[in-house]
């Protein structure tokens, strides 16, 4: 069985000869030098971490290795031979498999078909063997330990499951090098552990792995070597054992971060701003909670527990079946984001690409979308005041962009996220719901976003934080609510909360 072979093949290259060497790679985009003379050597059997701030050039380097972009200068050799990777097909032929940062699956296809997109098993006459595809996919998931149904349509799956499908796909066929660009940004610790298990098995067989993540703990757990990029330049390559959190962060952002979670807790006021009563949707069952001005209410839940559903329901995006949502004492018209916005609630979505970004539009237009009234008189937008407000946020959040009129699709993921957060903060809200706010965001920006969340709460907003990151949850929340299968199973004060208690409630 194909899937078996890929995860349990015979050890081939255990020698020290590099699987891939990239030397002197330079890549220019309009106005940006994304990579400047970067070199990278991948050894078989090793996990090589690639670190750097948002926009440092990690994904660009990976895409060059994947044949997506062609470098403006530099060479790539694979097992000692010079390789000309003109298209992803060439890279795949060379045994380079990539889990891309943005989900790269066909939404209309089933999970199983997506896994075999690169090569369908066929019978002698060339007909696709659907039975094998399904069976092999199921077997593959079983081996990795991911719980995904091969028959589900990918487009119906939450991001987290899609990410698992992506990972499984990279492992479905034999590979020389597996590259993972932030594969775990949507995964829970349990799944991350399973992934690491697999990575260890693969490296034991001599596969080279490139691993990109903004989660430092993961790097220290899985990587052998770390290369740090900053502003497209190579900063350092060292064994992970020579790094500490501090040295790594310093390499990445060129300065130290003293306190990742700056929350000065306990100042929450008494005034209830958001009151959710007996809220039910197709998925959620009778959820009630209150959020007060000045508090961060964290929501935890296992994947698919219903956090995103809850978030979308309380801002008026999704329809609800029963329940009342009151914001600042006023009833929210369900399934209507406009009254939601008027009452002062906003959502930073977890699905940036399909629900957040207007890819073709500029940074300015993306950022000011929700607060245009602020810059307009009787319907006319005052561009100077809009521009200065946008510029202020760009400066404050250190959004890396060559200009405000740059189309947002050319920004790195982390910078895009900052713009979207600014979209809401620009407006001034009573309640902000942030769903996985730090997904794909570098430590530097993360600490900024945490500081911002803290600041928002201090300013008297209620912050509803949906996150899968336990440290984030514990570090930021004043109270912690737990969802399990659409029900609210616990709400506790931060002081009473422990990881165990939270997980217990999440499994309940």
């Amino acid at each position: 069985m194909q899937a078996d072979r890929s995860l349990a093949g015979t050890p081939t290259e255990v020698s020290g000869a590099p699987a891939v060497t990239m030397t002197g790679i330079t890549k220019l985009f309009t106005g940006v030098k994304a990579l400047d003379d970067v070199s990278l050597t991948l050894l078989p059997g090793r996990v090589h971490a690639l670190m750097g701030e948002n926009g440092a050039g990690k994904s660009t380097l990976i895409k060059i290795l994947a044949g997506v972009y062609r470098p403006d200068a530099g060479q790539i050799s694979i097992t000692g031979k010079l390789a000309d990777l003109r298209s992803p097909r060439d890279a795949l032929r060379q045994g380079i498999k990539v889990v891309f940062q943005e989900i790269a699956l066909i939404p209309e296809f089933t999970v199983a078909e997506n896994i075999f997109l690169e090569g369908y098993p066929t019978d002698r006459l060339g007909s696709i063997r659907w039975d094998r595809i399904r069976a092999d996919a199921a077997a593959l998931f079983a081996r990795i330990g991911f719980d995904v149904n091969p028959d589900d349509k990918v487009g119906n799956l939450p991001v987290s499951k899609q990410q698992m499908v992506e990972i499984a796909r990279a492992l479905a066929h034999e590979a020389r090098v597996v590259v993972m660009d932030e594969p775990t940004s949507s995964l829970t610790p349990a799944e991350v552990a399973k992934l690491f298990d697999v990575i260890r098995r693969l490296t034991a067989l001599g596969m080279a792995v490139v691993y990109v993540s903004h989660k430092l703990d993961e790097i220290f757990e899985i990587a052998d070597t770390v290369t740090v990029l900053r502003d497209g330049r190579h900063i350092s390559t060292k064994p992970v054992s020579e790094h500490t959190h501090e040295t790594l962060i310093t390499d990445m952002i060129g300065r130290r971060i003293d306190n990742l979670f700056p929350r000065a807790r306990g100042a929450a006021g008494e005034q209830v701003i958001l009151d959710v009563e007996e809220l039910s949707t197709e998925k959620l069952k009778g959820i009630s909670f209150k959020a007060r001005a000045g508090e961060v209410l964290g929501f935890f839940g296992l994947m698919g527990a219903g956090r995103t559903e809850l978030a979308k329901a309380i801002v008026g995006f999704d329809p609800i079946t029963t329940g009342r949502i009151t914001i600042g004492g006023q009833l929210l018209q369900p399934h209507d984001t406009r009254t939601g916005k008027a009452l002062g609630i906003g959502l930073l979505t977890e699905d940036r690409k399909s629900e957040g970004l207007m890819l073709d539009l500029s940074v300015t237009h993306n950022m000011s979308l929700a607060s245009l009234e602020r810059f307009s008189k009787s319907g006319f937008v005052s561009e100077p005041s809009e521009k200065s407000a946008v510029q202020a946020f760009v400066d404050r959040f250190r959004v890396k962009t060559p200009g405000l009129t740059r189309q947002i699709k050319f920004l790195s993921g982390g910078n895009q996220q900052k713009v979207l957060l600014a979209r809401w903060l620009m407006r001034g809200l009573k309640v902000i719901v942030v769903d996985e706010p730090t997904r794909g965001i570098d430590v530097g920006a993360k600490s900024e976003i945490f500081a911002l969340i803290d600041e928002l709460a201090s300013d008297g907003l209620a912050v509803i934080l949906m996150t899968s990151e336990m440290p984030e949850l514990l570090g930021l929340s004043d109270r912690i609510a737990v969802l399990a299968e659409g029900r609210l199973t616990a709400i506790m004060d931060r002081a009473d909360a422990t990881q165990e208690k939270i997980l217990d409630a999440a499994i309940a």
Partner: protein
Amino acid sequence: MTELSRSAPQVSPKLGWLTSQTQLVLLVTLFALCLLISLAAPQFYSVDNIIAILRQSSLVLIVAVGMTMLLIAAEVDLSVGASLAFAGVVAMDVTNKTSSVTLGVMAGILFGGGVGLINGLIVTKLRINSLIATIAMMMMLQGSVYLYSREAVQNKHLQPLFTWLSTGYVGPLPLPVVVTAVLFAIGYVVLRHTTLGRYVYAVGANEKAARLSGIRPARIKMLVFIVTGLLTGLVGVILCSLMNAGQPTAGRGFELTVVAAVILGGTSLTGGRGTLLGTLLGVLILKVIDNGIIILRWDQDLQMVIPGFIIVIASYLDLLRKKSNAS
């Protein structure tokens, strides 16, 4: 990533009225055409001819203003040709019956608006793809105009005001041209400088994101459909005045001309991108070609062939420009 690797950066809007070089390409094309035609046929620059071109262009441009907004909002309306014929029939009939030009004109415009409203409802409430919905609407209008009147409705009222609508002058300019200029200017300002315009772009660029940001995409789309409908009704009235009859057979293929002009002007079919200046140039280019072929006494079949080439070549040049900008 999908979008990252294929498309191009936006040129700074600081360039002012030449928002991007797409329009530069078109402008050069337009000038070149005018130059070439006038070299071969000096009558091209006669006042009569220029007015003829402007009058024809204005008919297309009025509807194209709405169509541009529709395409930016990622929708399309192919029923405009049929609706325009029907609106003319209604306008003439009502004027005949009431002897009131005002009522007739209002009836025609409102008829168009009504069609736009129904199109909008079908698209936003039933969520039917607008291409198919408006093809269906086109069929229904072409059929039902004969349920309304089996014959072309002739001018029985003989109100000079009605004729003035299409042939009157304001100063040196024909009334339709003045009306078009005003509507175009309003459309331009709305699209570029108002919140509404921003919302139209936002809805076309990413409907979900727009909704999450407190915009009601359905309303924006409804509005744009209705505006397009009203403009179509207005053109129906003007054309009816120009033909001096409400002709049910008018407007065949008009929708294609409008869409071709808008596309030629650089408006994206996938929504979120486009400008009215481009549309203006697109309309003028197509109409100058149409006119030039007659002035040059070329085979009129070239009136199909040449625009066909121009559309393809112009979008190719546009693509080349984007590529060279992107790397």
